[in-house]
């Protein structure tokens, strides 16, 4: 065995034979989080940019991470030169042109971008969108993978939100916007086509979930798919007719719009989406769960789903944190 060259951004280091990549990085004083040195804590997660890393270095990672060439530095003994990146690698990679703007409800905009080049993404992942002056926000991709050069987003107007106000009011058809590489682990995986899926989202959390459902149905998922979309009142729900139509054409897709205040009309459920879901589904052993939306809903629901029998490795969550600068 010989030394292997490792490229991390601008920095290049040499990993010695029989030396873990983590130890090599620490020896060169690279700032990398780490703790257990034995593959348990997963603090030293990195990503290979040149294809699959050594298979031993992916031991114990979720399938989604493995597919995206993530690996643990402490378990990695490089057999060849590698180009690697930190886990939150957010270089802007391409640009898109605004091709459609459509109101989904009073506060949510459907924004469609035509990309300059095709992107390899999974439905349910998110990208960072960036304005010319550098202002940037994360948004989930709301369509499935059929459209490799087109992305759509549900952009909810936040009180005082600089980016969301700009997209609602000032962004025009034909305008250009920078788009990062896709990120996030909350997406459809075709490895368990018979297992039931539970998807719970609040507000524009419907965006990634709709993408995941569309992808699952497109790939012929056989297990039941339950969607609970929640909002405070009817004004916050959207795509109700589209989801109902989808449920009519796919016997294994079950749609439950929920409102947490006021009297619901027919076909809409009273209560928070997670409470309605858990009152109807007592045992989640063997289920795969997707949670998107308000951070409190996501963390509470993750715990509830786990206590109801879902395995932690089958719970995929995407909490929509509001940028602190939005309320300036």
């Amino acid at each position, binding site marked *: 065995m010989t030394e292997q060259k490792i490229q991390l951004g601008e920095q290049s280091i040499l990993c010695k034979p029989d030396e873990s990549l983590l130890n090599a990085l620490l020896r060169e004083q690279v700032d990398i989080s780490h703790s*257990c*040195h*034995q593959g*348990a*804590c*997963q603090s030293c997660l990195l990503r290979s940019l040149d294809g699959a890393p050594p298979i031993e270095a992916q031991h114990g990672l979720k399938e989604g991470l493995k597919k995206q060439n993530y690996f643990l530095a402490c378990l990695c003994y490089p057999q060849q030169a590698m180009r690697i990146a930190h886990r939150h690698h957010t270089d802007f990679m391409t640009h898109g042109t605004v091709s459609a703007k459509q109101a989904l409800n009073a506060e949510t905009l459907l924004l469609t971008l035509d990309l300059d080049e095709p992107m390899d993404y999974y439905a349910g992942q998110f990208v960072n969108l960036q304005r010319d002056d550098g202002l940037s926000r994360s948004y989930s991709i709301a369509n499935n993978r059929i459209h490799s050069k087109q992305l759509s987003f549900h952009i909810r107007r936040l009180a005082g939100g600089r980016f969301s106000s700009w997209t609602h009011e000032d962004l025009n058809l034909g305008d250009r916007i920078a788009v990062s590489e896709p990120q996030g682990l909350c997406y459809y995986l075709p490895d368990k086509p018979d297992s039931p899926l539970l998807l719970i989202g609040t507000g524009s959390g419907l965006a990634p979930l709709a993408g995941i459902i569309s992808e699952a149905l497109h790939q012929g998922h056989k297990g039941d798919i339950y969607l609970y979309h929640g909002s405070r009142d009817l004004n916050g729900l959207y795509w109700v007719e589209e989801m109902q139509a989808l449920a009519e054409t796919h016997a294994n897709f079950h749609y439950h719009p929920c409102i947490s205040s006021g009297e619901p009309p027919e076909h809409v459920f009273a209560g928070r989406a997670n409470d309605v879901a858990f009152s109807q589904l007592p045992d989640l052993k063997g289920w795969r769960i997707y949670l998107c939306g308000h951070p409190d809903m996501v963390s509470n629901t*993750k*715990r509830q789903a*786990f*206590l109801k029998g879902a*395995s*932690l490795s089958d719970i995929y969550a995407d909490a929509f944190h509001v940028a602190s600068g939005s309320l300036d």
Partner: protein
Amino acid sequence: MSESSSKTLFEQLGGEAAVDAAVDIFYRRVLSDHRINRFFDNTDMDQQAAKQKAFLTMAFGGPNNYSGTDMRTAHAKFVKMGLDDSHFDAVVENLAATLQELNVPEALIAQVAAVAETTRNDVLGR
């Protein structure tokens, strides 16, 4: 008897696969236990599960780099919240119940409990 005594505790339990089988059950029990679940209210569940896995690997006699200092540092804030012997006992009880649920023989459960016991003073900051 001679066959089993030639294997380590970790091997007799089934190695890493046994840890993987135990970690969800153990963590679910701990979160459902009203005596102790308040100590787990604000933790990232994936990180917590990874820590539980490291702890179970150690308690099963598996490869580990257990550090009493790390254990003290990690639990110091809970000692301030009132963490005491009764809570430690509850965790050991949940550990034993997890292994019973997985049909592990009582003799092995006693050995795991004995290993876990060696962390008591570090966890409780004594």
